[in-house]
């Protein structure tokens, strides 16, 4: 029983692989629709296993979970030099829930696909490729699940690339269309740019931490960190330049993050995701919304313990830029899938931003909730597109509510979820509300209360509430844990007690924030002002723009989602043909309803506690130098000891969530309201607004996607191709030219020695030797010249020269040798 869970997960990974192999070899014999049943059966079995594990894991105590995590089996796959590469299931709460999420969402989408492919063409240029679609889907499920369970960074990378391959194959599923295969290439190559950074990061992990294993790497990392040695030396020699103020560890973290930037489509590598919508809609739902693009976030969460605060800050900046620009672009999109694609980018930006500011739990929670509602939204859009005869432009839709009510209202649930629907001062709200709110709460604390350890000041709080404060402790070798008494104050608490019991009584409030059971509230806050030690003290607070941009975008998100929903489903039909054709297919709305129910209920109560447990397990096991924030308290963190950790308090008056209510609590209704005001009578008002001067200018830039594609296509891609052409010309003209020149030179010498010196071929050749010989012969013997011609081959002359030169060099060598 010891290895029960990991075995189940491993089997769950392999079953889709079996499905893939069957479909790859015999798929064309199954035909439509039987091929899909194979893939669906495989993923459903995996999902059942995942559910089994999830339920079992839920029922396992924390101590038993840690024990299982520690004892997970590892298979020795190979060695790289002296470093052993072991593969196994990284069995912990995060794996379990991610695994469940992936299999569950996949099952829904596979089921949806069966219906979708009924009405959609599975033909490529007249040939049915039905089985291939499900074949790739199975391969994707295998790769994605493998990525989730990998305990080794190398295997994570291997599966990482495999999901990229599946993405490539599925985006280019209709490969007879040029734009589809273009988009596929763009996706793969952009990802490879990210992987370039990933490889560097991986190399640094291997070199400096000496292992591929995630846990071991984190342990070694923290050891180095506390010793202040190795990659934490304060200045580095980067390619010969001394770079100060940046450690190798930071570079390593940024390198690893580059991989995530590719896969999760973060600025500046975000350009591939909107194009990836060229794939069939279920593909967009599964790969480009729910699972694969979240893999980047998952990676950052996994390597979180290898990030330094500087690297973390970099992550946050990238996330912040991404969530802002993509949300703005989403406002002007008219293709329903493109709107969703840009909103996906923006939400991924939120997750990355969350990880960057330290909201590990919240970011992963957002990943889970987002997977549900975004998969649902994409499936809805698939339903719409399918129903509307492959029309994707919302400008041509309208009034579809009556024709497709289920789709309409499930879509609306998704809109509310992504908008962050929640009723302030209560616990009522959708998953997206809690997760986004928590990310913003951490950002708030990081912005306003990071250094504010002494006197709480009211001035900066956006609401009139006193800011909840405080301290962050940081690790430093001069302050070994045992020397420092526990000090905790306010909402950001230092957790720097080895063996302290400060948190043990923190209660088990790893659930909802804002609760009243804030057991640690008063007890610890008053114990004095903690010293801001070590790195944390040197870190600046989060710049204000990094807090306010996500806040502003929290207003933009409901706006563009509402715009999309309203233009699609409400108002008057704008295109009669589309409207007449619209219909629903039950095979397609069943998964919608399942996902909608998941969005509403499941996510918070099932995932949140487990992610919280994952966080305490992951961060508790190692002394990570990264900044981690917890909401409420976490009882197991008490064992964690010395690290940069902050805890959001729920103290009355200090709760950052309360501060946020004033800032974004009503964002969803405001955003939705504005969208409704503008679009309730169709497109006219919106159009007029975009003609006002500065807005028209912004509008044009946004429609052009801020010119990223232009720059990349012309400068980077074009530049590379030109460089390739230059290299080839150089090869042809210079390198090969030199070769031919040498050959010509040899030939001239050959002709000269052969014809002028040795033997005439043409009339005007001299043929010196021959002439002399002939002369001598003529003179001495009086015999006429025998007409001879040299063999036509040039080879002979070359060989002669070559051998002759050997002889000369040899002679020289021998003479030199003799001289020694």
């Amino acid at each position: 029983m010891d290895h029960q869970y990991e075995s189940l997960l491993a089997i769950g990974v392999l079953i889709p692989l079996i499905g893939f192999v069957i479909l790859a070899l015999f798929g064309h014999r199954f035909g439509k629709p039987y091929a899909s049943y194979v893939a669906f059966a495989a993923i459903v079995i995996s999902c059942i296993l995942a559910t089994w594990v999830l339920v079992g894991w839920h029922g396992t105590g924390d101590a038993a979970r840690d024990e299982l995590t520690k004892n997970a089996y590892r298979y020795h796959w190979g060695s790289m030099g002296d470093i052993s590469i072991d593969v196994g299931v990284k069995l912990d709460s995060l794996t379990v829930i991610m695994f469940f999420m992936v299999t569950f969402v996949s099952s829904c989408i596979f089921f949806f696909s069966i219906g979708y492919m009924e009405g959609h063409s599975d033909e490529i240029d007249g040939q049915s490729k039905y089985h291939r679609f499900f074949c790739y889907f199975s391969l994707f499920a295998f790769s994605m699940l493998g990525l989730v369970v990998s305990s080794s960074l190398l295997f994570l990378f291997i599966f990482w690339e495999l999901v990229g391959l599946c993405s490539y194959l599925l985006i280019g599923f209709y490969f007879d269309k040029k734009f589809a295969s273009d988009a596929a290439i763009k996706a793969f190559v952009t990802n490879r740019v990210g992987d370039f950074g990933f490889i560097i990061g991986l190399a640094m992990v291997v070199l400096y931490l000496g292992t591929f294993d995630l846990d071991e790497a984190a342990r070694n990392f923290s050891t180095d960190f506390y010793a202040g040695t190795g990659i934490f030396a304060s200045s580095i020699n980067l390619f010969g330049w001394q770079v100060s103020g940046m450690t190798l560890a930071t570079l390593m973290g940024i390198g690893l993050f580059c991989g995530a930037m590719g896969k999760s489509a973060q600025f500046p590598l975000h350009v591939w995701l909107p194009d990836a919508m060229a794939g069939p809609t279920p593909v967009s739902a599964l790969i480009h919304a729910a699972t694969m693009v979240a893999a980047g976030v998952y990676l950052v969460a996994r390597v979180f313990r290898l990030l330094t605060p500087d690297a973390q800050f970099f992550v946050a900046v990238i996330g912040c830029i991404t969530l802002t620009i993509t949300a703005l672009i989403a406002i002007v999109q008219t293709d329903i899938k493109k709107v969703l694609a840009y909103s996906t980018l923006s939400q991924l930006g939120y997750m990355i931003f969350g990880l960057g500011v330290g909201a590990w739990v919240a970011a992963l929670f957002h990943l889970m909730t987002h997977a549900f509602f975004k998969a649902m939204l994409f499936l809805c859009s698939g339903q719409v597109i399918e129903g509307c005869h492959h029309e994707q432009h919302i400008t041509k839709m309208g009034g579809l509510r009556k024709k497709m009510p289920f789709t309409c209202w499930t879509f609306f649930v998704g809109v509310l979820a992504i908008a962050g629907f929640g009723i302030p001062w209560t616990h009522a709200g959708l998953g997206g509300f809690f997760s986004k709110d928590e990310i913003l709460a951490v950002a708030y604390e990081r912005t306003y209360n990071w250094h504010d350890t002494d006197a709480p000041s009211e001035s900066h709080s956006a609401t009139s509430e006193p800011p909840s404060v405080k301290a962050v402790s940081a690790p430093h070798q001069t302050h070994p844990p045992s020397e420092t008494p526990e000090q905790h104050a306010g909402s950001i608490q230092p957790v720097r007690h080895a063996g302290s019991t400060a948190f043990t009584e923190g209660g088990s409030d790893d659930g909802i924030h804002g609760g009243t059971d804030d057991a640690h509230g008063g007890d610890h806050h008053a114990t004095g002002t903690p010293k801001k030690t070590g790195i944390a003290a040197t870190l600046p607070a989060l710049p204000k723009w990094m807090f306010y941009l996500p806040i502003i975008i929290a207003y933009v998100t409901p706006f563009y989602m509402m715009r999309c929903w309203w233009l699609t489903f409400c108002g008057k039909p704008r295109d009669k043909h589309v409207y007449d054709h619209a219909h629903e297919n039950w095979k397609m709305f069943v998964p919608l309803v399942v996902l909608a129910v998941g969005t509403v209920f499941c996510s918070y109560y099932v995932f949140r506690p487990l992610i919280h447990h994952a966080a305490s397990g992951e961060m508790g096991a190692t002394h990570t130098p990264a900044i981690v924030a917890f909401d409420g308290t976490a009882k197991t963190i008490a064992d964690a000891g010395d690290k940069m950790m902050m805890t959001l308090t729920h103290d009355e008056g200090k709760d950052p969530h309360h501060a946020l209510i004033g800032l974004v609590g009503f964002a969803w209704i405001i955003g939705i309201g504005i969208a409704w005001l503008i679009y309730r009578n169709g497109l006219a008002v919106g159009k007029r607004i975009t003609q006002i001067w500065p807005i028209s200018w912004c509008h044009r830039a946004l429609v052009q996607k801020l010119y990223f594609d232009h720059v990349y296509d012309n400068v980077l891609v074009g530049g590379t191709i030109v460089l390739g052409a230059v290299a080839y010309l150089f090869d042809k003209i210079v390198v090969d030219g030199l070769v031919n020149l040498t050959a010509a030179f040899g030939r001239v010498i050959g002709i000269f020695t052969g014809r002028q010196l040795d033997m005439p071929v043409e009339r005007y050749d001299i043929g010196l030797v021959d002439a002399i010989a002939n002369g001598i012969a003529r003179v001495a013997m009086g015999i006429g010249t025998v007409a001879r011609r040299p063999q036509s081959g040039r080879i002979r002359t070359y060989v002669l020269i070559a051998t002759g030169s050997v002889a000369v060099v040899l002679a020289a060598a021998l003479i030199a040798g003799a001289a020694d």
Partner: protein
Amino acid sequence: MESSILSWLIFLPVIGIVFVLAAPGRYARSITWLFTFAVFLLSCTLFDPFLRSWAFDGPYGTNMHFEQIVEWINVGGFHINWHVGIDGISFPLIILTTLITWLSAWASWGFDKWKINRSPKGYFALFLLLETGVLGTFAALDFFLFYIFWEVMLLPMYFLIGVWGGPRKEYAAIKFFLYTLAGSVLMLIALLAMYFASADVTGTGTFSLIEYATHPEIAKEFNNPARLFLGWPFAKVMFVMLFIGFMIKVPIFPFHTWLPDAHVEAPTPISMILAGILLKLGAYGFLRVCYPIFPSAAVWAAYFLAVLGLVNIIYGALCCLAQSDFKRLVAYSSISHMGYVLLGIAVMTTVGFQGAMFQILAHGISSPMCFFLVGVIYDRAHHRDINRFGGLWLSMPRYGSLATLGFFASLGLPGLCGFIGEIWVLLGTFSAPWPWAKPVAVIAAFGVVLTAGYILWMIQRVYLGKLRKEYASYPDATARETAILIPMAALAIFMGILPSYTFDLMNGTLADVLDVLQPAITAAQDVVIAMGG
């Protein structure tokens, strides 16, 4: 352990030649197929010692298997032995050779339908002779013997390209021949100089490659900075001459331009052998001759060689982007991929060596596969212009899937063989103790982006897109073509998923070679440290 099995292996193709010449021409291909297959089976019997734990006990040179020494020529003080034997460097290459040669023989099955199909007897006889030359080179432990086989291999290739090649076959063949001959000349000079240098130490000279590296007196004298050759340090001159000789074969920039021409003109099976095996001879030469015998020079040259490897990777990949000839593209991608081999060897770390050797084998599987894939369409379309293809996956689904697999293996997709070699080399380079290693690794890693770019672009233009009318009637890969592709595809997957089985065959010997190099590396490190670097 005295064994004549290697001699049988080397000369079995020669026996085949007798049959090919004696039998009527129409049987030539069957005889060749049978003999190459027999050679392959025979080579598989060599697996035994390499699967055992004691296979690599003892330092470099003491763990040769199937060794055979027979005095061959003893004239005027020259002692030349028939000395063959294999260890972890040569054994995987011998298996690769016999396998790829057999598959290429099979790929020559359609010989009668070629444009130039005169004299099947001549073609297949030369084909078998080529195998003898290659196997002999891999097995030879006597430098003179090595040189002879090296030359034996050269001639059949010249004729195979020059007689049965494409429109510019003469140009390509002569270019190939002269280039390789130039390398041979340098090797010959080094050969003799090394013989006399060894004679200075031991009295009677030796040609043994193993003794050069392991005999303490000889090794010391060879690497003695005071020993001069034409006024320069002996070790450096020898190293450079041998290196140039081998790098032409690999080929390394700037001596690479014979390769695209030779590939474009050569018939498909010959391209398979050329890319799959002949290029590996150069890399094998580094590992067998240059490095263990002249460690001091290897350390001295490490930086330049790594940069050359880097140039190969990036420059080769850039040139690929500009190609419209399918075969030329695959040829340039070979140049790019062989850059990883040189880079891995040049940094002289365990991981780098392992990666380089793995890359040799991985490329030995994936590049013949790619060339054969090109050949399959060339047989049908009679042109290789990438821009004129399109939608071939639709008319030839089985072939298209195998092609995708083959090209993704070449791209270095994880789970397939190319990835392991690349990542090992990159990590080995990054962790190398040289001050220049990290920047080189970083730039080399950028090669993965370019590789993805040119391979995917090519796949798009050839296999994806709308099916063009002129290709719609093409039959899918035949049973024979599939049968040739399957072993390579299977090996590509096997080596990608479970690389440790391949690594186990060679790691022991690579470690031995590194042990030979270690004192020189350590000395160089001390200098670096002393200089404050």
